[in-house]
């Protein structure tokens, strides 16, 4: 199985990611799209700034993809993550997974985003009208 894993500093294309995993023997496709919310705890968000340790982030995403492919019978898998400055409504991450049946597609997709958020060295700073904060940095 081939993985399509990318860090991009240009807008993500969820339609292309989805088409990429649609295969003739696939019956179930699950796609997760993470977008920039216009507010956090009631504070308006002006923009997010994503920073990645690029080489390691790609290696960690590859590891997660291999782990998913080892656990579930997947057909294809795409993980695209943004870097740089994103405005509310823009797409930060797209994960698309196909399998013969939906259970594997759903479970693997959820595993991929949950694990990505725990282990992949990417950081985001939320910028508000009156300040900015690195998400999750402090207890």
């Amino acid at each position, binding site marked *: 199985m081939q993985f399509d894993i990318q860090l991009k500093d240009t807008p993500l294309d969820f339609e292309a990611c989805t088409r990429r995993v649609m295969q003739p023997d696939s019956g179930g496709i699950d796609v997760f799209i993470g977008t920039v919310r216009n507010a956090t705890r009631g504070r308006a968000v002006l923009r997010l700034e994503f920073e990645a*340790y690029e080489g390691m982030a790609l290696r960690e995403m590859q590891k997660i993809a291999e782990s998913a492919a080892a656990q579930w019978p997947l057909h294809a898998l795409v993980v695209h993550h943004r870097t740089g400055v994103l405005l509310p409504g823009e797409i930060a991450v797209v994960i698309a997974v196909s399998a013969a049946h939906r259970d594997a597609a759903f479970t693997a997709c959820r595993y991929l985003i949950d694990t990505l*958020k725990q282990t*992949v*060295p990417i950081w985001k700073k939320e910028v508000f009208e009156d300040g900015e904060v690195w998400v999750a940095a402090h207890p």
Partner: protein
Amino acid sequence: MTITVLAFGITRDICGQRRFTLDLPEKTSSDALLAILQEKYPPLRQLSSLLVAVNESYAEPGHVLADGDEVALIPPVSGG
């Protein structure tokens, strides 16, 4: 020996630089390096967590560094 330190996210703000080099005694471990940096930049102690990657892989605390290693400071990640 000389190692390169990469500081990402909030650690870059705390250290005031993205990339710098340090001269260390031979066989310094990754947790000894962290202790040196926390001494020099106390706000590093206030983070929810602080891990270290050596040459693009997460390192165990006892990992022994070698001359020329690239060591990255990994504050809590927040991708997705």
